[in-house]
């Protein structure tokens, strides 16, 4: 019922407007200047159509485009690269295969025997952590953050997804929320009388998100004991 009320109000406004304009003008139809009136209508209407056509031309000459340098991406492709990156991380080959998705690298010197790994504010931390033990003890922790592309409605927003923070303190390695970023955009969609043929949802707006796979790959000295407090460490 709540949906009907604004619809009804709109309908009443529309009906009232249509009837009023028609009635107000109706008198003129019977006056002597009938044809000059219809000519005036013709002029006004031509003016309206001309404005619409100018807008069509403006839009064609200067098409409304994706701005800010955002690119269109193929979501299927994104999904594949996300899976591939995960698989190569599992296989321990991410350094070779995931090179193009490397976003950030850290190197820490650490000579302790135990290392806590914990997160600080992980509200929207969605990173899988992989740990690989090196063959020797060199007192170095190497961390690499990989992330595949993310998209919203087929638009590449990877640049907006910032890597999480990683810091080494006395008592352990801390993972922080990535810096939050925000995008706002407008999108033109087809009218409902087109959507019913193109298979789009009628009143629903189509929105697709693909969040890129994000992986933190740690390489730690051979005998370092890890104490995981994150629950996100895969291995």
């Amino acid at each position: 019922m709540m949906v009907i009320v604004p619809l009804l109000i709109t309908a009443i406004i529309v009906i009232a407007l249509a009837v009023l304009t028609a009635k107000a003008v109706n008198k003129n139809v019977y006056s002597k200047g009938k044809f000059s009136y219809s000519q005036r209508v013709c002029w006004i209407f031509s003016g309206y159509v001309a404005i619409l056509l100018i807008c069509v031309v403006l839009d064609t000459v200067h098409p409304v485009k994706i701005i800010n340098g955002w690119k269109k991406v193929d979501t299927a492709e994104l999904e594949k690269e996300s899976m591939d990156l995960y698989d190569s991380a599992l296989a321990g080959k991410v350094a070779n295969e995931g090179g193009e998705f490397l976003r950030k690298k850290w190197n820490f010197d650490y000579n302790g025997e135990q290392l806590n790994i914990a997160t600080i504010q992980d509200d929207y931390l969605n990173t899988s952590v992989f740990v690989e033990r090196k063959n020797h003890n060199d007192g170095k922790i190497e961390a690499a953050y990989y992330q595949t592309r993310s998209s919203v409605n087929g638009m590449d927003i990877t640049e907006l997804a910032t890597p999480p923070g990683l810091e080494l303190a006395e008592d352990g390695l801390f993972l922080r929320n990535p810096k939050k970023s925000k995008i706002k955009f407008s999108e033109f969609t087809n009218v409902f009388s087109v959507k019913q043929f193109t298979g789009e949802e009628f009143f629903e707006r189509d929105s697709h998100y693909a969040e890129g796979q994000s992986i933190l790959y740690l390489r730690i000295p051979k005998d370092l004991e890890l104490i995981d407090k994150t629950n996100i460490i895969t291995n």
Partner: protein
Amino acid sequence: MSLTKVSLIEVVKKQYVYKLKAYSQVFISLIFLQLLAVLFSMNGVGSMGSTVGSVEVQASYFSSDFVAAFTMLWGFITAILITTKAYRNDDFVFVANRVSSNLSNAVFLLTTSVVGGITAMLSSYLFKVIIYYFFKSTPILDAPIELLLGIFSTILYVFLFCALGYLVGTLVQISKVFTVLLPAAFFGALILEGLSGKAGTVASVFEFFFTESSLVLFIVKIIVAAGLLFSGAFVLSNRLEVRG
């Protein structure tokens, strides 16, 4: 009584040309309504907010839904208006009978549907340009707009509503009872359906047209329905009193 015998087509043609001029004010109301709809559309027809990882996404959607819906309603009202007495009597400026009068009305309504459908779809460019040039604050994503399909399907919808309006108008001319009865029946059914939560007649009629995904079937449905509505109106209008 006329001395020269005039063929039906010629009469229809004459009446049609006359009506285009005499009823031209309906196009002014069309402009009003479409501009109003464009104004309403500025706010966006929908919005969406979500978070993708650390990225907060806020989107507003724009489409010519309002303009198309307003135009359909306009077609409905226009059709009712031209069945009213003041308009009906215009026909008898010429040598005319009910057939020629009805036919010329149908052709006139077809013309208004075409005009309404085309301008409705073109007006989406108007607000696109307005948003683009005057509200540059947010970036804009442009989906491919199916202009021709939009124009074509909107014309058909407007024509369907014209046909419905024409039948309603004719019914009201037969008896004023229908001015109360028809809206009461429509809204009564709508409210009953709303209360019972089941899809009833009104919902299934809407579904019949608005969820048809095959263009060919859609065209057939609209033409058959509009044809039936017009024939109904033609038959009923013969019951109207002969003008003295």
